């Protein structure tokens, strides 16, 4: 088993350090928000996770198209890695969103477009993983995974738009469309710094997790190959 490359080790350390620093900023540097109090602090991580999760979503869709064009299995590993990590990031997004929602609106969940689309995206990811699990042949698995990433990827923006349309015609049943709900309250400079730092932190964590997962994928492939060689 080859040791972790230097770059990855650096990323590991950077992730840990940045996360610690970001946490410090969130709790001690950013000012208290007037309307919501301490709970608002979760916003920094919540949005950062969502944006980085979207990165993963895009990466998966692009990797899928790349595989279909070039038939190189390395794109398939990237695609699966992006989906799995994005899945986790969106779970964190949804959970932190719920933690924020309860004190704000008295409910753990609202059917607003963004949250609902995030949940649907998670379902598509899980469907993707189940699809892959049901296929033995790695080439077919890669092909089908890529096709589903494409179909799912196209449907998500359309779903988001349709839910938004749905919501504007119907009044919001729970809570009102307050500025806080839209995530668009005024940010003073210190908040902005904290937010951007959070974004950077989670991007680095994403990159490091992605690298780890791709390595894992490659090693799994090597094991498969060794197994085949022994059997022959």
């Amino acid at each position, binding site marked *: 088993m080859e040791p972790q490359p230097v770059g990855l080790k650096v990323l590991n350390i950077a992730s840990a350090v940045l996360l610690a620093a970001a946490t410090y900023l969130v709790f001690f540097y950013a000012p208290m928000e007037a309307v919501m109090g301490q709970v608002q602090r979760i916003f920094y991580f919540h949005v950062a996770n969502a944006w980085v999760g979207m990165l993963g979503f895009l990466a998966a869709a692009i990797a899928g198209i790349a595989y279909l064009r070039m038939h190189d299995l390395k794109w398939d590993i990237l695609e699966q890695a992006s989906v799995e990590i994005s899945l986790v990031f969106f779970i964190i997004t949804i959970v932190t969103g719920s933690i924020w929602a309860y004190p704000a609106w008295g409910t753990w969940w609202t059917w607003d477009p963004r949250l609902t689309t995030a949940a649907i995206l998670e379902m598509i990811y899980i469907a993707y993983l189940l699809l892959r699990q*049901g296929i033995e042949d790695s080439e077919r698995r890669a092909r*089908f995974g890529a096709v589903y990433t494409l*179909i799912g990827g*196209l*449907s998500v923006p*359309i*779903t988001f738009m349709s839910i938004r349309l*749905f919501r504007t015609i119907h009044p919001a049943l729970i809570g009102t469309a307050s500025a806080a709900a839209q995530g668009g309250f005024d940010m003073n400079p210190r908040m902005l710094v904290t937010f951007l730092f959070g974004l950077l932190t989670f991007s680095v964590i994403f990159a490091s997790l992605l690298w780890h997962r791709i390595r894992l994928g490659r090693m799994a492939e090597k094991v498969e190959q060794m197994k085949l060689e022994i059997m022959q």
Partner: protein
Amino acid sequence: MKGEKSNVARATSPGSFLRAVAAITWKDLAAELRSRELLSSMLVFALLVILVFNFALELDAKTRATVTAGVLWVTFAFAGTLGLNRSMAVEKDRGCLDGLLLAPVDRSAIYFGKAISNLAFMFIVEAIVLPVYSVLYNTNLFHPGLIGVILLGSVGYTAVGTLLASMAVQTRTRDVLLPILLFPVVLPIIIAAVKASTGFLQGFPASELTSWINLLMVYDVVFIAVAFMVFDYVVEE
């Protein structure tokens, strides 16, 4: 010996494409007319779903107006997966898919042929469910707008469903996988179709429902195009 050039020309001309699509659709319909297995299972299932809804939801006169469209679309969506699964399973079981792939036509002809016959089956089921529901709940469902929405929605559903069913049938988990793959992706259709259907049933003029109808049309066009382009990757090795 037959003229070589004409043979090749015959294989790849647009006429042969349409002929192949028609042949596949005819084949599916003829076989189904004989056995009626697919249609009967779809139909019985659809009627059972409506029955279950009767007890699960309060379908009294007041709430009926708001809930009818939803009940109908849930019914169509679930019965639809039965039909899609069965339709593709027929090809897989006797290796018939290979028979289709051996034909000297573009792969997308297979996609269109299957999609059109799947659509036909869905239409037949819908055409029976609508009057039955009307009778059971004393609601008039024969609104041209509603029928139009059901048409548009079914087209989009079948377009994506045929593609995903072709994938699902080649996996180990088969039937179970199709709804898991299909439903999250087909949500815009459910959303738009239910809103538009409710609108028509409650007497809104078509002009107010244009955004939903547009959404359905956009979805249909986008996904028919994508499925057509991507089908090769699903059937070719």
